């Protein structure tokens, strides 16, 4: 199924949860924050958050800034 991650179209397996997606993307859950369809997903809910067709995800982290 198709979802959008950080503005890019991505094809992912059906039945994938957010925790699984982060693992596939090689992202450490403790270092990112995820917004799904404009709602922030709490870290402890990653495993229970099933992704759905058309989801729009924003995955952010801290970078150098002033």
């Amino acid at each position: 199924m198709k979802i959008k991650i950080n503005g890019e179209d991505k094809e992912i397996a059906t039945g994938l949860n957010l925790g699984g997606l982060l693992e596939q993307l090689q992202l450490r859950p403790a270092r990112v924050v995820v917004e799904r369809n404009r709602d922030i997903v709490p870290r402890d809910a990653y495993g229970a958050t099933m992704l759905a067709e058309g989801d729009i995800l924003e995955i952010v982290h801290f970078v150098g800034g002033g």
Partner: protein
Amino acid sequence: MEDFLDIAGTKYRSRLIVGTGKYKNFEETRRAIEVSGAEIVTVAVRRVNITDPKKENLLDYLDPKKFTILPNTAGCYNADDAVRTCRLAREAGVGKLVKLEVIGDDRTLFPDVPATLKAAKTLVTEGFTVLPYITDDPITARKLEDIGCAAVMPLAAPIGSGLGIRNPYNLRIILEQARVPVIVDAGVGTASDAAIAMEMGCHGVLMNTAIASAKDPILMAEAMRLGVEAGRKAYLAGRIPKKLYATASSPLDGMLN
């Protein structure tokens, strides 16, 4: 003598707040921050590069247990984006302190004051400890304080300009009326700029470019630490009044005839 920067009840020994942008790499960032003695460190919130997820993360070099992480809203041009960024930052679990900046124009990077006020109201209501970047305008400073911001952070000069304190008189008015810390944010170019801000009675100085873009960032980080400390001590010591004519330092009695 005990002397702390008190932000919403948290006491900091260092009055220098530093950014983490523009460094060559994370190792240089870490070393510069260590030498600066800063306890509060600003960071930005950005999308992860999902096609090339770097294994290393800024927080691998800045232990959030050791430093107070101050996420900023740099790059936000309206209140909604700034609030959204702060909510994301809070979810990262580094606390509720945020540096609010709502930019009005990409040439000057001056703040959009009405949008900053609007975002500050929402953020304070949501329980954030808000440190807003503002122009050196006493009225805006007062309004932000009334909203419940934990400090006000007037610019000395445009971000990254290194022009130093362009309007000390406005800063003096802000300092005179403020009941929250006044932290000079942006525009500092070198150590004397930081010292001047502190000598005036500012409670802290926030900077990034002046250190990160110096020829030797580590040495400049040390210079800034010393500049802030020297300025603070001079302020506490109380400088002599400026006079037009000389006053002899050596006694006039006991002179040879």
